């Protein structure tokens, strides 16, 4: 290696260093310039002392009744069509016990697990669990890989296969991302019940805070037998079923 090479190298090194020193404060200033106005008395956020859940009483759920599904579709702006490419956030399942022949009917939706497999597998952390136990898809981060749909033991998720128009202002949805029951998070944050729970005439869907021992749902769970679906997977879903 000759002298010129060495000189050239040291020149390049020095100038790169100088450039970095020159640019760095400017970059920091940009952050300052973009400083956000502070909100006084920060508004309230999802609270980890709360765990939202539901108790579904299958003995009160009528076969053929679809009121919860209709209410969900209306609340969230879903088309209500049932082609294999259409989104279904909640669905009615008709069951028949193999051994006894007993019939029952129940609504199935995202079970809002404490240990959600969809959150584990999501490569971009788009699937996440809020502090209050609601499992959501952050559609700003979802790249549409559908791995969560493969991982969900309850088939709770749908992929938006077509461009959508005129979505509800409260429920943004869009092509190429995965979506599921949000437990009507936009209603819950206003202190309302999820639409399905409100719509059920037989009061088969009881919504409430599983962490509050005095809530109606907690007292009911203590007094009647209820199970979680696929409890063997130990995901601790927030939705429980009575009479299953």
């Amino acid at each position, binding site marked *: 290696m000759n002298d010129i090479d060495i000189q050239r190298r040291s020149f390049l090194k020095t100038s790169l260093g100088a450039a970095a020193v020159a640019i760095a404060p400017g970059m920091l200033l940009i952050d300052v310039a973009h400083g956000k106005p502070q909100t006084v008395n920060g508004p309230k956020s999802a609270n980890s002392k709360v765990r939202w859940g539901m108790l579904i009483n299958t003995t009160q759920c009528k076969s053929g009744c679809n009121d919860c599904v209709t209410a969900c579709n209306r609340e969230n702006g879903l088309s209500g069509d*049932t*082609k*294999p*490419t*259409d*989104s*279904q956030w909640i*669905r*009615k*399942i*008709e*069951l*028949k*016990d*193999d*051994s006894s022949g007993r019939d029952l009917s129940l609504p*199935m939706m995202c079970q809002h697990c404490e240990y959600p*497999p969809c*959150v*584990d*597998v*999501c*490569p*971009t*952390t*788009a699937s996440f669990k809020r502090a209050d136990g609601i499992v959501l898809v952050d559609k700003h*981060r*979802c*790249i*549409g*890989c*559908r*791995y969560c*749909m*493969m*991982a*969900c*033991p*309850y*088939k709770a*998720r*749908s*992929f*938006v*296969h*077509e*461009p959508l128009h005129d979505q509800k202002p409260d429920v943004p949805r869009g*092509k*190429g*991302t*995965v979506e599921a029951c949000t437990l009507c998070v936009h209603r819950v944050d206003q202190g309302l019940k999820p639409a399905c729970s409100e719509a059920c005439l037989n009061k088969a869907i009881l919504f409430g805070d599983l962490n509050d021992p005095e809530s109606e749902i907690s007292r009911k769970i203590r007094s009647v037998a209820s199970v979680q*679906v*696929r409890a063997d*997977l130990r995901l601790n879903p927030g939705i429980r079923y009575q009479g*299953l």
Partner: protein
Amino acid sequence: MPTLSSLRFKNRLYYVLLAAGGLVALAGLYAVHLMEHHGHIITGMNNQIVWGVPHVFAIFLIVAASGVLNVASIGSVFGKAIYKARAPLASLLSIAMLAGGLSVLMLDLGRPDRIIVAATNYNPTSMFAWNIVLYSGMFSLVFVYLWTMMEQRMNRWTKPVGFAVFAWRFILTTGTGLIFAFLTARQAYGSALLPPMFIVLSFAWGLAVFHVVQTVIYAWNEKTLDPAILQRKKNLLGVFVIGSLYMVATYHLTNLYFAHQAGFERFILLEGGVYPRLFWWGYVLFGSLLPLLLIFSPGLEKTKYVMAASLLVILGSFALLYVFIIGGQAYPLNIFPGYQVSSSFGDGQIATYHPSLYEFLLGFGGLAIAFIITTVSVRVLNFMPQDKPYISD
């Protein structure tokens, strides 16, 4: 001695082939554009079969990309001369197929425009996220490996880098297997056997691809492969095909042993229509037994039989992946064990899937990308295996 006119013809043929590859790749991109515009509604995929034909192509390419490096490893790690001579070509094929496979996987996303999010928001518990690291690491490592082989001053580093590549590709194929193995709720996938199964499959598929490309390159350059080398390599392919069959059989047998998965096995091996047909005819008969016959029958030592066996192994791999990926999703998820279920969302029913033309265009587009990278590289750099007179080691 080739005449001037034959050289001219070949030159023209080269560009025709390259243009054909380019057209197929463009058709793939056009399919992506349509999928972007209309959404996945124009594919056959739906909320039950969420991964379809593009994933069959992508996983084939990625698994074969890892397996083809076996040829390089036997040379660098175990010091076998005839494999060492083939390590550069194997590395090139690996890069080409990885690029093709990843393109397909990426372009099938619902929001491919947002792929950068995968880098800015990284989820360490996701096998997919780990695979992104494994794939990009593989790219860089194989590039370095190629460099150490083709730049004489770097030759002394070939062995350690070769070791690193050897280890990395094992982890990479393990990662590919784990994408499925971690799906514990699905009858078809939650099995610890899947990573080793994918590793053994990768050996067979990678070597089959290597045979095909090597045969074409030798024919193009009007050279003949030393029959002793051909003999050795085709026997190796035979061993890998037997190994694959063993792993696939073990996977199904363990599933049969678990009582609650017998229903799934009955579906996939007997009653599932297209899936058992593809499995038995496509994978077992045409993709494994027939190639074995071609490989081990005495008197069939010619290149064309090895070529035929390799092509059959590749076809068989697509059949197996179709059964594994799509058949595995078609069988209904057992959400309520002990109950018969029905719903508007396909509960308790076999899901239907009709792959659309666009999915195939995208898949073949991925193959075309691999083809273009290979043909261009083979022309501008020297990837031709340089054999010394064959001495058995």
